[in-house]
């Protein structure tokens, strides 16, 4: 068969003179059957949305990191050998004892043309890299893109976040300046706090006591070889899975779990992604060219005695640093059988990040279990339709924000002339109160938005047109939604808490596994106890059956009452009745007050249409 195809190719070739590209493609295909791949991928459809670009920003800033990092390795000397700086600039450095690493950093900044530019591009790219990973993960989390079949890719992504943090930290330490040296010393302090093996881990990292003369070369190998190598492998896996599973899509007309609606890879995405890469590289270059970052010669070479006030780590370490600052010390260093367990360090620096990453890693499985969900999902959730998930994300964000603020408490104190003790105490309280409050508010906002969706579907947009009847009655005309608008607000399903088999079976024998089932049911109730059903055609019909709007609209000349703001009509504030699951009849979320039949709450204008 291959022979036949080859022959046919020759026939075609005889008819039209083959182009050079055509010949090269033929050469390659006869040896690799690459045609199959091209056929599969060239016109592959990808959905479009601005939020899908966040992961792209991460990928492209990683490429910029590789390119600028290669430049830096040409001039950086990863050695802790002690040298005396010789060079006129910067003058304060001349004659100082420093490591070769620091000397080469200053040298590449001041003597190598474009060296400073590349250093600054590299540092800014690192900050943007991790920032875009975090935003991308928020997008994936909020839209439920981690659900089946993408759980594995979520774990791959989470692993890459951890590697990116490691890459950031190892790179930050390489110049061997006072700032990064003190950062390493904090790491040493945290590592020593780990029970049983902490002291030995410290020796393992530094090759001797802190700081020793080994750590910079070791971090260098990790930073330029091990971590980027793993990242490249995982990026390949991440993208492979994305292509294999096809990208998820936001809900909309014609979009389902069985299709993908969008634009073809060739030419649209090839052009857009290439363009996007150049734009991101351009913006990062602009930042590197115009915004100074990490002027290490101002800090000086590492010396264990000095430290400067008002120092912060790079933004992605802020939450750990802030947690370290918030933790009260006295009473939290425990001595057990003569061994020291400094919980004042372990809780903020080991346990808190541990809980965070464990929660992120297990979330897809917890949520699937609590939802009783085994289906494939390719249509993304609107965040409002999963109130608890969205609220958890916002709560995590608030916790991060409080910790990041705590990591700047000294700057807040000096800039606003406040007591540092007072700030710390306020933030200690906020760390617990803030996320809880954010959770509660976000969940309520999500439920309210869902009710708003129902109201829109059932009663239409407020048109601002007021119509007066011959009887003197005023009515505001509502414009019905078009089918696309309706579909966006009704395409989802609202999950219910799990139903489990009773504790006793028919013969009154206790059922094994009931307690475990009940635990999962409790989690499920936490997720889905408060719920709002999407509107249905039946409800829409009911909402219209007693109103006279439709008839009026046909009769009323356009323009009557235009621009007049009429009284707000009272839509149904409660959800469709008939929830059968446990807890689904919680007051305020789903009750009998459905279709405006006398549904006038306090403070609401009576709805004229309901009298019909």
């Amino acid at each position: 068969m291959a022979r036949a195809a080859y022959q046919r190719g020759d026939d075609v070739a005889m008819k039209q003179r083959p182009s050079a590209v055509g010949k090269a493609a033929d050469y390659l295909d006869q040896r690799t059957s690459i045609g199959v791949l091209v056929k599969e991928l060239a016109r592959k459809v990808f959905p479009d949305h601005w939020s899908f670009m966040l992961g792209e920003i991460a990928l492209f800033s990683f490429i910029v990191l590789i390119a600028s990092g290669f430049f830096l390795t040409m001039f950086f000397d990863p050695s802790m050998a002690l040298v005396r700086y010789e060079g006129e600039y910067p003058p304060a450095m001349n004659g100082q004892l420093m490591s070769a690493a620091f000397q080469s950093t200053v040298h590449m900044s001041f003597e190598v043309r474009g060296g400073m530019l590349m250093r600054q591009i590299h540092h800014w790219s690192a900050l943007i890299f991790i920032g875009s990973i975090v935003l991308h993960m928020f997008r994936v989390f909020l839209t439920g893109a981690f659900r089946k079949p993408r759980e594995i890719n979520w774990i791959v992504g989470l692993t890459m976040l951890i590697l990116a943090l490691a890459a950031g930290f190892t790179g930050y330490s390489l110049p061997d300046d006072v700032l990064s040296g003190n950062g390493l010393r904090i790491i040493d302090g945290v590592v020593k706090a780990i029970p049983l093996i902490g002291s030995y881990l410290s020796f393992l990292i530094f090759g001797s006591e802190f700081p020793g003369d080994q750590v910079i070369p070791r971090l260098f190998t990790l930073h330029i070889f091990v971590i980027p190598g793993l990242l490249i492998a995982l990026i390949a896996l991440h993208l492979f899975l994305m292509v294999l599973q096809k990208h998820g899509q936001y809900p909309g007309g014609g979009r389902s779990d069985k299709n993908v609606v969008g634009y073809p890879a060739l030419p649209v995405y090839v052009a857009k992604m290439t363009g996007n890469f150049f734009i991101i590289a351009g913006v990062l270059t602009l930042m590197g060219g115009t915004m100074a970052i990490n002027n290490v010669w101002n800090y000086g070479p590492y010396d264990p005695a000095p430290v400067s006030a008002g120092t912060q780590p790079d933004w992605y370490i802020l939450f750990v640093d802030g947690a370290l600052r918030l933790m009260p010390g006295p009473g939290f260093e425990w001595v057990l059988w003569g061994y020291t367990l400094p919980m004042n360090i372990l809780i903020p620096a080991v346990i808190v990040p541990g809980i965070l990453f464990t929660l992120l890693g297990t979330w897809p499985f917890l949520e699937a279990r609590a939802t009783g969900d085994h289906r494939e999902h390719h249509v993304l959730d609107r965040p409002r339709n999963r109130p608890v998930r969205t609220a958890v994300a916002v709560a995590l964000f608030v916790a991060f924000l409080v910790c990041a603020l705590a990591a700047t408490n000294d700057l807040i104190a000096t800039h606003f002339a406040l007591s540092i003790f007072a700030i710390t105490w306020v933030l200690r309280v906020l760390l617990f109160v803030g996320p809880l409050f954010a959770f509660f508010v976000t969940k309520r906002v999500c439920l309210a938005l869902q009710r708003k969706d129902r109201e829109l579907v059932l009663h239409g947009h407020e048109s601002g047109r007021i119509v007066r009847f011959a009887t003197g009655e005023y009515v505001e005309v509502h414009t019905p939604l078009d089918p696309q608008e309706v579909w966006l607000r009704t395409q989802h399903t609202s999950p219910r808490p799990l139903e489990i088999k009773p504790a006793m079976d028919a013969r009154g024998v206790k059922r094994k596994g009931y307690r475990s089932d009940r635990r999962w049911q409790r989690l499920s109730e936490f997720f889905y106890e408060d719920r709002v059903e999407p509107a249905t055609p039946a409800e829409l019909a009911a909402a219209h059956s007693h109103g006279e709007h439709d008839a009026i609209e046909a009769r009323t000349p356009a323009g009557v009452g235009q621009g007049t703001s009429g009284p707000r009509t009272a839509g149904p504030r409660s959800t469709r009745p008939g929830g059968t699951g446990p807890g689904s009849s919680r007051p305020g979320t789903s009750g009998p007050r459905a279709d405006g039949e006398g549904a006038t709450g306090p403070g609401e204008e009576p709805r004229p249409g309901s009298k019909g």
Partner: protein
Amino acid sequence: MSENQNNPADTSHEVTVTPQAGTDVERFADPGVPEHKHRLTDTDPRAAKRAERTVTFLFVLSILGTIGSIVAYVMVPPDGTTSGVRLSTLLIGLGLAVSLLGIGIAGIHWAKALMGDKEMVQERHPLATNDADRAIAVKDLNDGLQDSGVVGRRGVLKGAFFGALALFPLAIAVPLIGSVGGDWNVSKFKHTMWRTGTRLAIDPSGRPIKAADVTVGSVFHVVPETTDEFRETHEWINEKSKAVVLMVRLNPEDLKADQSPPGETWSHEGIVAYSKICTHVGCPVALYEQQTHHLLCPCHQSTFDIADSANVVFGPANRRLPQLPITVDDEGYLIAQDDFAEPIGPSFWERLK
């Protein structure tokens, strides 16, 4: 809805379609992909031409940016001063940024204005292998396993096989781990280079300090006195990391207490010396406030009261800073009575052992 999401026993992996029939009273119907709206460049040839010219202009701009960047590289070399470096960085950076942004914006504009924008629909297929293929795969695996001849017998062979595989990394790991931590002597954490009679010297000059030169209220950053040669070695940096001391002279009536055990005097006429390494995670504690006699760690704001045994006043540290017992020698220089009585710096597992 035809499917039951809440049935825990439902382990099917098929994609369930949401019903799309328009007659359903429970679900609204999917209206299908929205009608395609043409862009201006699709309908107006002049707009398309304009977009084409814009894209071309942007590519040309990029070329100019590249040239500008190279001109800046050649014409504006950094002269070593901060402002020279800044100018060179700025010009090369701007040129490169224009070069990159030109290509980027041109590409996006090209794609959005001129390339086809008709939405396409492709089917998704269930990711799971179909049952027939899956059966073949399972059979192939079983056949392969049978052919290997190890299923259900040759237990010794299997044990040896897995044993060998599990053990060989040790031959690499043992030498690596043996050497990677140097001498692994973690008891070094408990001692510093302070000895009986070591003079206190100013950091970084290394000049010894006379008690008479320490005025009330002044703060000294102190290191042990040593030779100039030793001060140029890594051993010195390691030792200095543990031995740095902050010394303050207080009015003797302000000094409420220090850490001297009964019968000993660790301070000298109001001069007290405390380890400068924070007992939290090891930052140098360097911010001293004269009015309150508080010593603040700039890293995590642990606050110690120098007038009262360097006890923790606030912050994440749990323990007071260890005191260096000092006195004066015959020539009036401040000297250490001995090493610190307890390990300095952050806590570790074996600290009290």
